[in-house]
């Protein structure tokens, strides 16, 4: 078989393998969670209190914690990313553009544990001193650092879209007499909605999936935070904590439920965002 014939098969195999892996993970999770359904434990998992030694295995606070931290990080990172991407693509002179892009690329390669560790020594004491409430390990701390983590993802995806748009629209708009800020405001931003959406979806995925930053910085108290300065626990950190300490007891199964919920939340959010994207398209 020659290369031209082989290639489509290889590509199809790669695509199938990826889909099968995702589907397989879902099936395994459902299989592992099944004991909870049959033993009637599902009700005790969908609850608000995590006190495993007293038979309370509620993981809803962790669902809320995950959503708060991920959406918070997205809310901080998205405007910043739009600013960085527009600046790099339109306003920055060549040299600065290069430095900025190199820096953003570099940021994608910083391991999360570095962010977490540095933040314990820098950001956590600052938050503790400034606000005089709580330990500094909080929803706000984790959100800030997580937004830093997802920033480059959003910037790079968005900038790729902007680059294409800019190529086709720049000369026309310059000829029409747009100033550069007006060009960004009235032409580029409205046109790049789909790219922005794709970037936000990817960023959200990273934020929800990240474990170490929330584990190291959010304080891990299994409760719904009453203020941004309170500690909270994400589903990923919850799984890490329980797996690290327990192995066979009944509540060990609740981590699979946490995994399944995490999986489903991701699917749901992706669907919603894609739906929104559909209605946005001109």
């Amino acid at each position, binding site marked *: 078989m020659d290369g031209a014939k082989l290639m489509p098969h290889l590509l199809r195999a790669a695509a199938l393998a990826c889909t099968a892996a995702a589907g397989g993970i879902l099936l395994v999770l459902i299989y592992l969670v099944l004991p909870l359904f049959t033993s009637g434990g599902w009700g005790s998992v969908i609850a608000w209190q995590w006190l495993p030694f007293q038979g309370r295995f509620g993981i809803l606070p962790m669902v809320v914690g995950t959503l708060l931290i991920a959406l918070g990080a997205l809310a901080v990172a998205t405007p910043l990313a739009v600013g960085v991407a527009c600046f790099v693509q339109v306003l920055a002179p060549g040299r600065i553009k290069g430095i900025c892009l190199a820096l953003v690329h570099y940021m994608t390669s910083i391991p999360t544990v570095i962010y977490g560790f540095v933040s*314990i020594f820098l950001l956590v004491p600052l938050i503790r001193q400034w606000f005089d*409430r709580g*330990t500094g390990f909080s929803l706000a701390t984790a959100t800030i650092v997580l937004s830093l983590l997802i920033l480059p993802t959003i910037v790079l995806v968005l900038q790729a879209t902007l680059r294409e748009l800019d190529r086709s629209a720049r000369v026309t708009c310059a000829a029409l007499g747009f100033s550069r800020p007006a060009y960004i405001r009235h032409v580029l931003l409205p046109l790049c909605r789909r790219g922005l959406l794709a970037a936000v979806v990817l960023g959200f995925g990273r934020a929800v999936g990240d474990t170490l930053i929330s584990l190291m910085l959010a*304080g891990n108290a299994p409760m719904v935070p009453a203020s941004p300065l309170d*500690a909270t626990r994400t589903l990923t950190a919850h799984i890490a*904590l329980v797996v*690290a300490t327990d192995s066979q007891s009944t509540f060990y199964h609740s981590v699979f439920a946490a995994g399944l919920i995490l999986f489903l939340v991701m699917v749901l959010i992706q669907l919603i965002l894609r739906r929104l994207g559909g209605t946005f398209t001109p």
Partner: protein
Amino acid sequence: MQKKLIRCGTVTLLMAILLTIPAWAGSLKSFADLQGTLDIAGGTAHIPVMNEAAKRIMTANPKIRITVTGGGTGIGVQKAGEGLVDIGNTGRALSAEEVARFGLRSFAFAVDGVAPVVHSDNPVAGLSVQQVRDIFAGRITHWQAVGGPDAAIHVYGREEASGTHEVFWKKLLNKETVVGSANIIQSNGAMKVAVSRDIYAIGYMSIGHIDDSVKPLAVDGVLPSQATAIDGTYPAVRQLYMNTKGDPKPLARAFIDYILSAEGAGIIRAAGYIPLQ
């Protein structure tokens, strides 16, 4: 013919190993004829002892590679049970389910105390048992109530199934639930970092992990230490275990014997724990 010779040689070597183990058990010499890798994972309290023993063994016999990773008691059970590591460490006795599921054998080797700790600049030096309970239950929330600075108490805890948490919770907190707003820390090492960075913190950790960066609190006038843990005046003590799936393999057996030997006892003592033998 050659094959036979090799087989003969292997058998002789194996026999030699088997024969020499009892003779040299417990000293570094017992590793002389061994080689291969030994993977250890699990409880974070064990790490100082495991690391020191591994270092000495690997120095004495470079053909042996020993890796030591943490993860926690749960990881220790899981990994040893699934056969992913040779020795899984736990900071608590195995539960009946764990023994039944995996067929693990436990080797207790040290006694460890779990002590309440505060920042080294905190003027509070001791608390009553009742004060400790009230603080961790969230009834006392201010350091002034126990003779400390004018600031809120920052409570740090561990996940409920942690070996360190279990002994503290059973023997000092009298099984009272730790306040829900407590920050949950994932290991003994991380607890030391958290408490040493927060001047208003209180947490609890394995005595072996305590160093100058944090301060153990006396409880009812008894300062948690090796001495008070061994004579029974400090109540929150537990045993540390190594676990193997079924009977240990020769290298794991030699490692366990070494930890249980007189030299191992020295390492255990130097790490801040009390050897069992």
